[in-house]
């Protein structure tokens, strides 16, 4: 018991931090809430380093302390810290400000459970915990758009969550256990395995915004504060893919699940970029681009169990994605939410322009940026798993991606008719510096990631 708890220090600390934050919020001390949150996240990250190389389970196999869970913490906790800083610079001084910070930390706790869960019950718990907090975060502005977005998000979440729980009962019935490690028992019971798999795809696909479960994403991101959209687009999404990795690596591949996911992956990236091509609202544009990025993430899931590149690919791409997508949202926060707001930004604010170009090219997968290294891993894994056609589609979509992102870049270097609004707070500038540096130089240090 003591041993098990020791392995859970990062999660326990984050939970305690969130509780403390709620207490501080009761005293309406928003800055204190933020300080507690940042300190808790930092300490929790440090504690993670202690268990990073462990490969074990706690509490009877229900919770995994392994490579995926360890790196998930190392990526999601600092990512949450950056999101908190972005939120602070956007909503400082507003009522209920501290609640946002507390909710963000609670959602991240749910995300860690998704990434570490080794049991169906924990998967459900993670989905519910991330979901409940997210609905409230989206509804924060309390205007019509936010309320509508939150309602859509909630209804969609409730339905997909129920479907997932329903389907998981099949797996429980077939395998005789709720542990993922027992899913091998489904060997030969293809129908049962398939029903459960579809349920998991529905539940996690909703979290990850996979086509066709993505409809909530553009509305939710658009209705929510930009910083919350940034947070949801990276942390809960990455968590969903870590969860995919935890669930599916024990499922016998004979059930044909890799092919199902490969088809969804192809549809997701293609649809995401096609839809992004026609957006003029930057938040919606990045929302659809995030949908497309989910398709690339899923390539790593497809290769699970076959290619040794799959798990490192998901981890690397998650790290890159968190940095570059947060960065792109940070620019949107500073400059404005429509394409026109960026006109001339690159000419008048060269550093902000360079940062945005770096994020967008990295999202496209242009070397030597971080996103490229992630994609190389994902592509290699998929080829090794025999999905060459999926990689070809991924490559064709990279060209589509370039079209999407150049729609942002080109006007940035046109001369502006109106003065460019660009007044980032010191916090936002800090977030931009960190995310730009990570996107720019991490490929040089890609060797530190697990393989």
């Amino acid at each position, binding site marked *: 018991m003591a041993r098990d708890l020791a392995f859970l220090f990062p999660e326990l600390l984050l939970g305690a931090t969130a509780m403390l934050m709620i207490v501080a919020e009761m005293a309406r001390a928003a800055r204190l809430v933020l300080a507690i949150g940042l300190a808790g996240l930092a300490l929790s990250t440090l504690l993670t380093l202690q268990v990073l190389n462990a490969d074990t389970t706690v509490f009877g196999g229900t919770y995994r302390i392994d490579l995926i869970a360890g790196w998930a913490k190392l990526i999601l906790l600092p990512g949450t810290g950056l999101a908190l800083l972005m939120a602070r610079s956007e909503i400082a001084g507003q009522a209920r400000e501290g609640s946002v910070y507390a909710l963000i930390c609670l959602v991240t706790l749910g995300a860690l459970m998704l990434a570490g869960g080794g049991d169906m019950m924990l998967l459900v718990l993670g989905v519910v915990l991330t979901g409940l907090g997210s609905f409230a975060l989206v509804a924060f502005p309390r205007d019509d758009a936010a309320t509508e977005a939150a309602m859509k998000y909630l209804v969609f979440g409730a339905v997909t969550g129920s479907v997932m729980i329903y389907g998981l009962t099949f797996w429980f019935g077939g395998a005789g256990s709720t542990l993922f490690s027992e899913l091998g028992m489904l060997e030969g019971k293809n129908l049962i395995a398939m029903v459960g798999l579809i349920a998991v795809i529905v539940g996690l696909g909703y979290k990850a915004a996979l086509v066709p479960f993505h409809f909530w994403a553009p509305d939710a991101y658009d209705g929510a504060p930009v910083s919350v959209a940034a947070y949801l687009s990276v942390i809960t999404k990455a968590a969903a893919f870590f969860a995919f990795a935890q669930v599916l690596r024990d499922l016998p591949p004979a059930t044909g699940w890799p092919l199902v996911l490969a088809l969804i992956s192809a549809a997701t990236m293609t649809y995401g970029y096609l839809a992004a091509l026609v957006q003029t609202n930057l938040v919606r544009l990045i929302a659809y681009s995030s949908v497309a990025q989910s398709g690339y993430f899923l390539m790593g899931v497809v290769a699970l169990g076959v290619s040794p590149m799959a798990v490192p690919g998901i981890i690397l791409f998650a790290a890159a994605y968190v940095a570059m997508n947060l960065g792109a949202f940070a620019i949107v926060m500073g400059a404005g939410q429509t394409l026109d707001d960026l006109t001339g930004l690159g000419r008048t604010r060269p550093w902000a322009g360079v940062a945005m170009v770096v994020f967008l090219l990295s999202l496209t997968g242009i*070397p030597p940026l971080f996103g490229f290294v992630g994609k190389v891993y994902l592509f290699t894994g998929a080829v090794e798993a025999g999905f060459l056609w999926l990689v070809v589609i991924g490559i064709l979509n990279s060209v589509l991606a370039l079209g999407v992102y150049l729609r942002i870049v080109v006007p940035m270097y046109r001369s502006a008719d109106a003065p460019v609004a660009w007044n980032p707070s010191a916090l936002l500038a800090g977030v931009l510096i960190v995310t730009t540096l990570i996107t720019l130089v991490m490929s040089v240090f*890609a060797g530190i990631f697990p*393989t």
Partner: protein
Amino acid sequence: MPLLTLATFLPILGGLALMALPVRSARVAHGISIGVTGLTFLITVVIWSRGIVAGDFAQVEEIAWIPAIGAAYRLGLDGLSLPLVLLTSLLFLASAVYSARIGERAASYVVLMLMLETASLGTFMALDGLLFYVFFEVSLVGMYFMIAGWGYEERQRAALMFFLYTLLGSLPLLLAIIGLYLGSGTFDMRAWIGAPPLTGLAAMLALIAMLITFAVKIPVFPVHTWLPAAHVQAPTAGSVILAGVMLKFGTYGLVRFALQMTPDAFAQAGQVILAFGVVAALYGAFAALAQSDLKKMIAYTSVNHMGYVVIGVAVAALSLDPEIRVIALDGATLQMVSHGLVTGALFFLVGMLQDRAHKRDMADFGGLLTRVPWLGWTFILAAFASLGLPGLAHFPAEFQIFLATLNAAPWAIVAILAIVVTAGLYLRAIAAVFLGPENESWAAMPDLDRREKLAVVPLLILTILVGVAPGWLIDMIHTTMASLSF
């Protein structure tokens, strides 16, 4: 001293230093640009003096990068890459000298140029598949911003076309690199060359993927359509770098990757590749003949000249006689260098004409030779070189290529027709622009100034030197080609 690394990264470091400077006037920017490219050129000359070895890569520099997947930072040189490295550092120096008059956002311009130089040198020196791809793609991004930012009227469209075309073109190479990695467990290009990891269908698929990439880059008909648009709209130095350096990525890759890493598949597909080369050479010449825009005309002659390189490489793969193979590859490699020198000079000269007249249609000029003798005679010299006159740089290269062709694949000798066409089109251009009755609108046109002479004359001196006494260059190339086993 890791000179290769130094030469590769000195330009980008110069660019970063410029970005960090508080004063970024045009003067400071161009000063840094000329200083850094000059120093880089000197370093490459020292690298040249250190020499290469037969049968292997020389001066290898290696540092672990992602050890778990066998990717490392590896640089090295042989007789194929060293001439191109020297050409690259020379053309960037000449471009820096020429560009010194650019005042519009000079600092950003210089930073992009320096980034391009790092990417170009890295592409030729990389000995790691992943690293090669990184440099290869960075050059794309740099050129996109160069065309989009400093080009002419239709620059946005041309830049976008260039970027989309070549990105779509280069992604298949990534597939091939992944395939080679999965076949060998490393990204070390030396290992891929030493023992080609793919065989049969996998090798053929990898070859096709590589050919798509390099065909777009070279460019070969029918995937050349981005080239005239990009060249016409690019700023002059951009055109010089694009034609002089970046087209060589395609032919370099054709030898380094396609020929050396999938040799058997290449030999099987040899006739097809040869046919593409012949069509490109002929098509480029006839398309150039149809142009009245000088810049477009020179752009199309690039398609023609690079077609000869493709012919040379294909002949080398087809021939069973080792001597003929070496002659073909020597000629093809020399042709890359010659084309860089000659076409670089031609784009400079047309750019200089355009700086003065803001026009580049032949019909708008006439009788300029008496008005601007320096511009006129240098252009005539470069044009004669480009049409393959003996004693100038293209002749020894094309001679060797056709000699080998005649031996190994006689039918392909039809490509020699293109030389006649090129001769015709250059004579027509010279007559229209520099001879005949003088067009009075240009009575006040100034001749080349010192800066312009400094940019273009060294290229022409080398053109003559390579034409008259190509030995020093061919020996270097020959050292490697004679020991190639594929």
